[in-house]
């Protein structure tokens, strides 16, 4: 029984107005504090990056170098890149912090990511066939996805996805499964789409695995391995944070029919039911790009993320008022729950229905994920 059916149309309208109210209050308050926050963070990230790359060239400081570069890449991708490319700081008018111009230290092009993430994932969060983040075309993440033998590899493929996350994300927009498995896309089209991706990938690979090692001279192997380690640390961490945000067992997923005549209030509630937070201290929040407040992020994707902690109590109060769940837990608890789902769904489940067919339009009820 979904929480959707418990609410009346009037309640949806009221919820929409309450969330709009939070958004408008924060928008009106944006100013120097937010500018100083993001600039301070960019500065810290650059210091860690420059420091890290230098320390990697000096054997005694090598471990510190790996740590500094890993943190730098995580900050660049998450609290800075992800959030800036959401347009959270567009209001500042600073071209260097503008979603139109920003690019990140990742193999994925900013343009492709904004399409798969800002448009597909955020508009259609957890809607099967619309939100490609549900399994990345690779995994079975919902009972409503028809089981296929390839999903027996759900668990090892998830490990692989974590390991090479930046490259999987880079090719996400290519929808390779449509070529390999569903045959709805041609190889020629795939090749064409891959061109800009390869251009960015090549630059990133050349920077970390050729240019900096060469600059290090005799220390080249240290720098090479250090860069592998830093990229790996960033990949695993980013992937884990993202999986925690949408795939713990109680998080709902929805059929496409949910989109019909969806109001602002419905959209807010869907975002709420499709996301999960995890708890932690200030450092945990910064390192996860404040995606530890995944619920707040999905309600207000273009508000500066450091504000989520401040508005979380208000969001929680609204949830309590309308009897809606506010899914949160420890990082480990959410991760465990996510892996449980991935493991369960690698095997055939009883209520698995066809997913590549037209959604059943007779019911507006979302489908609950828990097996």
């Amino acid at each position, binding site marked *: 029984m979904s929480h959707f059916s418990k609410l009346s149309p009037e309640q949806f309208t009221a919820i929409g107005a309450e969330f709009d109210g939070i958004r408008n209050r924060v928008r009106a308050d944006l*100013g120097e504090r937010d500018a100083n926050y993001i600039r301070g963070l960019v500065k810290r990230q650059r210091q860690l990056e420059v420091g890290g790359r230098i320390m990697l060239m000096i054997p005694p400081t090598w471990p510190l170098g790996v740590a500094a570069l890993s943190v730098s890449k995580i900050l660049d991708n998450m609290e800075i890149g992800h959030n800036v490319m959401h347009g959270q700081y567009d209001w500042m008018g600073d071209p260097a912090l503008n979603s139109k111009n920003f690019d990140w230290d990742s193999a994925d092009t900013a343009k492709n990511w904004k399409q798969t993430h800002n448009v597909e994932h955020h508009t259609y969060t957890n809607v099967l066939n619309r939100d490609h983040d549900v399994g990345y075309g690779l995994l079975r993440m919902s009972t409503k996805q028809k089981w296929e033998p390839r999903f027996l590899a759900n668990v090892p493929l998830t490990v692989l996805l974590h390991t090479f996350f930046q490259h999987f994300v880079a090719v996400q927009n290519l929808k390779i499964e449509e070529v390999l498995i569903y045959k709805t896309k041609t190889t020629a089209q795939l090749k064409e789409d891959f061109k800009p991706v390869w251009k960015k990938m090549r630059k990133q690979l050349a*920077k970390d695995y050729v240019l900096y090692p060469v600059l290090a001279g005799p220390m080249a192997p240290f720098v090479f391995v250090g860069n592998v380690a830093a990229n790996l640390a960033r990949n695993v961490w980013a992937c884990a944070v993202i999986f925690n945000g949408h795939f713990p067992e109680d998080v709902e997923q929805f059929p496409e029919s949910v989109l019909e005549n969806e109001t602002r209030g419905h959209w807010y509630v869907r975002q709420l039911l499709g996301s999960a937070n995890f708890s932690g201290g200030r450092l945990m929040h910064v390192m996860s790009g404040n995606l530890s407040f995944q619920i707040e992020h999905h309600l207000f994707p273009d508000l500066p993320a450091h504000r989520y902690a401040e508005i979380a109590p208000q969001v929680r109060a609204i949830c309590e008022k309308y009897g809606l769940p506010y899914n949160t837990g420890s990082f480990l608890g959410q991760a465990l729950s996510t892996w449980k789902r991935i493991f369960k769904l690698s095997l055939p489940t009883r209520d698995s229905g066809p997913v590549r067919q037209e959604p059943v339009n007779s019911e507006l009820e979302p489908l609950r994920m828990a097996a």
Partner: protein
Amino acid sequence: MIANSPSIRLLSTGLRRVLGSRVAAAMAAPHSVDRYLELFDPTWSVHEVRAEVTAVRHQTADSVTLTLRPNANWQGFRAGQFVRLTVEIDGVRRTRCYSPANSVHAGNEHIELTTKAHPTGFVSKFLRDEARPGMIVMLSQADGSFALPDQRPERVLLISGGSGITPVMAMLRTLCDESYTGRITFLHYSNAAKDLIYAAELAAIAARYPNVELLRAFSESEQCGELQGLFQREQLATAVPDYVEATTFLCGPPGMMKAVQKVWAEDGIGERLHLENFTAAAPVIDSANAEGDVRFARSERLAANNGATLLDQAEAAGLRPEAGCRMGICHTCTCRKLSGQVRDTRTGELSDSGDEDIQICVSVPVGTVTLDL
């Protein structure tokens, strides 16, 4: 980077070559090299012009004169041109156009900007109240066709009003520094003697250079100016009888500019008049007859046309398009119109209805307009 002595200049040139190289770009990719240089000094940049405020003076109650030290990316200006100055106010970048008032011979280490704080002037008020030595601002390269020609004219008439004095001040100072031998008449209009920016320096120049004639006109009574009242043909004919022969440079408030232009047009010597609009005439907004919608395609927003400029309507809709002068001279706000017709607030001219670049700060929609914003 700031280059003061020859050896530093040489070092700076070499360093700049390294920082501007492809290797440096590949090392910093996907970010710009500037983002790393900023860690060391906020004015360091490979391409951007940034400047430090080195002195702040208040010549009159409502004005502020800033001395800026630009970084080595500054390429200098021609007397009369303007720059776009960007400051950050409460986290938001704001850009306005100002004409440097210094001589072009003062060297590239120094730019002087003077602004008068208008009651509605957000940036000018901020600069008057908040500018302090040490503050960092961003600049564009100099721009604009209002400038002293390289072949200096034989006879120069400089007419200005209010804070429109700055570009002609640059011309006067530049010509004086060049020991220009032709005659210069400096005709300036302001309300009262206490509002005259550069009063002391103008008097000193007039005293020192016999070829410079200073004519101060004050509109308030009992002021000690050479002239009294607003610009009129009779007054001009008496005070500057040879104005027809002079190459004239004009910058001032809209009413005054119009009056001067009329005289020159009537005399058929319009080509001898060079002018700079430093404040736009308030656009005629016809909200009663505004029809259709304004569609912002990229941000997927829709607003009912209220007759204001597209820039104002975009901002009212919560967008923050890049904008500078807000009067149609700097082209910062230029934006793609995908469909619909607009009217130029300056000329009343109607645009094509198709896909084209328009300046949204001086365009009002005529019916439904779609912008790529």
